[in-house]
């Protein structure tokens, strides 16, 4: 055995557990605002993730316990459950998790080797395959747990009256119909709250709280969340200032859709991100900018997943351009 002979009490497991703990405030608010159905989805996703992870490890002839207990599969599972509409049928959640664990993670060689964020890859796959199901979001307080359970367990999808447009959808449709931002927000459909989607903005606040906890615990550095929020805020801010009737404010973007979850829990995935602080900032800001563009000009409910995958592709490029220079060395000694 050689030096160093001591190790800081740190482990991948501990990192992942901290991330899970940090997701709890958001989940608690989610249950409070939108009902306990999300817990069922979380359970389905977790079970699928662990089972498929174990299966893949067995097939790849890797030791089971170390990788299974590192918690990374559970983090992926929770993120997928949280970004899917909370009333999707069970098999859709399972499909998403399988795409993430089997496709995006293990086929690329397992944790550490995968270039694409597994949760985002899963989201993109299911939204392309099942666009209709993926657009059925329950209205915030309109669905009781029994109905949620019925829908999740694959019951007949009589969803009229219990789903509603998300804030992003309502905004986009309104703008396409030549309404201005203020009249859309004031339309009194119960979709909007004080900042983003009614109810959802509180869930976003829960994610923000958890994210700050991760910052304090130094699991993540500020470059990623700040970069993402800054990138999105810059685009939203410029257009909003130029044409406030046609573009919603940065605050609306921050509080709607998956912005907070993405800023603190998704772009912060270390495996599929960049390494240097500057690289991290560029990566996250790029994702924020692209997400805003897709939200504003695209057809999908939220653009974050595509934005992150696009930036995943750019990682080698960013890494190459932002290699840090060793202490005391000249710039041209960059690797």
């Amino acid at each position: 055995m050689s030096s160093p002979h001591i190790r800081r009490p740190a482990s991948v497991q501990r990192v992942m557990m901290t991330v899970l703990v940090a997701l709890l405030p958001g989940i608690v608010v989610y249950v409070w605002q939108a009902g306990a159905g999300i817990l069922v989805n979380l359970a389905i996703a977790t079970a699928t993730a662990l089972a498929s992870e174990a299966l893949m490890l067995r097939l790849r002839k890797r030791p089971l316990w170390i990788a299974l207990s590192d918690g990374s599969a559970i983090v992926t599972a929770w993120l997928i459950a949280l970004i899917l509409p909370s009333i999707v049928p069970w098999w859709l959640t399972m499909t998403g998790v399988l795409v993430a664990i089997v496709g995006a993670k293990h086929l690329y060689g397992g944790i550490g080797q995968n270039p694409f964020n597994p949760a985002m890859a899963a989201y993109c796959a299911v939204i392309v395959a099942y666009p209709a199901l993926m657009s059925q979001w329950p209205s915030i307080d309109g669905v009781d747990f029994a109905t949620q359970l019925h829908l999740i367990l694959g019951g007949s999808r009589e969803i009229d009256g219990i789903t509603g447009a998300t804030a992003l959808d309502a905004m986009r449709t309104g703008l396409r119909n030549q309404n201005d931002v203020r009249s859309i927000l004031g339309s009194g459909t119960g979709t909007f709250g004080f900042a983003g989607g009614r109810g959802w903005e509180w869930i976003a606040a829960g994610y923000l709280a958890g994210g700050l906890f991760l910052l304090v615990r130094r699991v993540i550095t500020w470059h990623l969340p700040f970069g993402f929020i800054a990138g999105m805020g810059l685009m939203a801010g410029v257009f909003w200032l130029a044409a406030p009737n046609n573009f919603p404010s940065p605050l609306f973007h921050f509080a709607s859709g998956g912005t907070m979850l993405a800023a603190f829990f998704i772009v912060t995935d270390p495996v599929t991100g960049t390494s240097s602080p500057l690289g991290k900032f560029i990566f996250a800001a790029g994702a924020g900018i692209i997400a805003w563009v897709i939200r504003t000009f695209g057809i999908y409910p939220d653009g974050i997943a595509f934005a992150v995958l696009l930036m995943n592709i750019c990682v080698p490029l960013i890494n190459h351009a932002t290699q840090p220079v060793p202490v005391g060395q000249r710039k041209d000694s960059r690797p």
Partner: protein
Amino acid sequence: MKARIFNPRGGVKPDSHKKESSESPIRHVPLPPRLAVLLIQGSQGSARTIVTVGDRVLKGQCIGEAEGADGTAIHAPTSGTVTEIGYYPMAHPSGLSSQAIVIEPDGEERWITYEPLDPATADRDELILRIQASGIVGMGGAVFPSHLKARSNIKTMIINGAECEPWITCDDRLMRERAANVVTGSAILALLTGARQTLIGIEDNKPEAIAAMRAAVRNMEPVTRKCPGAGKMNVVAVPTRYPTGERKQLIQVLTGVKIPPNERVTKYGTQCFNVATAHAVCRALLHGEPMVSRIVTVTGNVERPGNYEVLFGMSIADLLAFCGVKPDTTRVLMGGPMMGFALPSLDAPVIKGCNCLIAASNELFPPSAPEQPCIRCGDCVDVCPTGLQPFEMYWASRTKNLDSARRHHIFGCMECGCCAYVCPAHIPLVDYFRFARSEIRARDEEQKAADQARTRFEFRSLRLEREKSEKAARLAAKAAETRAKAAAGGNAALIADAVERARTQPPAQDNAEQDHQK
């Protein structure tokens, strides 16, 4: 005066574990039954035996003289008889052996007398020769011959009392108890190197040492005051952080100068000496005492942890036994836990670089958790004091992409171990780097051998080529000569020439016959 501190990047703060050994005064160890002084004390500087078995020696008598300009002398640690010159294991990760002079003490501890040298009046060369003859080497663990460093010409001298590795407290105790000698030695070194200012860096977790050293600087002995450079001597408390005690790190903390891994500190007008080295210089010049012992921290899984004044050549096993090493000790580390190594053999004698021995048990040093895949979390990047990207070097080493490893400055890594210390995936990063470096070196060697072979081959073809063209030139010259002769003397000359040739050459069939008879 409040000195400025320059905070370097990275570094870690492991549990210090200093209190275990720092709270009791330096203790003496009884004379062991024999002392085996190794002729090779470090990777640089060896000695040549000048005694034979049966010789009686005095304490401090030179028994091995410096070999070459880089060599350092070794001395009898006590008075007694040379009983053996044989091979003993070295305290080195390789477990190799080296020649040692074994002395059986007579128990009288009779010193040889050397004349002290007055640094204020003695010649610089004389002083430096005395340092070499006294066998002084870097005592921080590097064991670099001090006379070589004392010869440099610098502006700022750094005296290293940082002692950033956990568990080690020998410099702490030395500064608390013998501050005056450390300060005097520092002043002498400042004189030799021409330094205009001297900065003594001590980590702020050693307030007693800082106080003692500050007092010593204030009450400097008159002899020291005469040394120019001593006037601007400053004791600076530096923040506790590993690896601030690494010399380039300490230089950066104290002066702000960032020295790249591949460049010499003297190029930047600085040089760094350990406090124990300064102490040894003082003893050697002012008291005529060569290096025969050092302070060793013995700590960890022992009954009586503390600091011990140990004669060179004492077996490490004996020393540990004296300190009450506990039975559940699994291995013994020499140096600190961050950069030290597990001793392959406890029969190795104590050498000049042996600053600390840590008896390790599974409880104090739990075995590392199994290695997991790298998750690219970047923690290793954050702590690397050199600003490298350890995980990139790791991926490159793992996949044997040696060019990439080199491009990521794998040779700039000082093996401080900060990256492996924090890695949540428990990857033994430094091991990977050592492996990749040896692979690169091996490949370079091969490349060199291949290049040499090619050069040889090319040279040979060149030679053949040249011989061929020379031959052609000779033939052409000869033909020209013949033509010229023919032109000058007509056929007669040609015929005479042919006759002459036939006469001097034996007939062909004679040759054949002779061959036949054989």
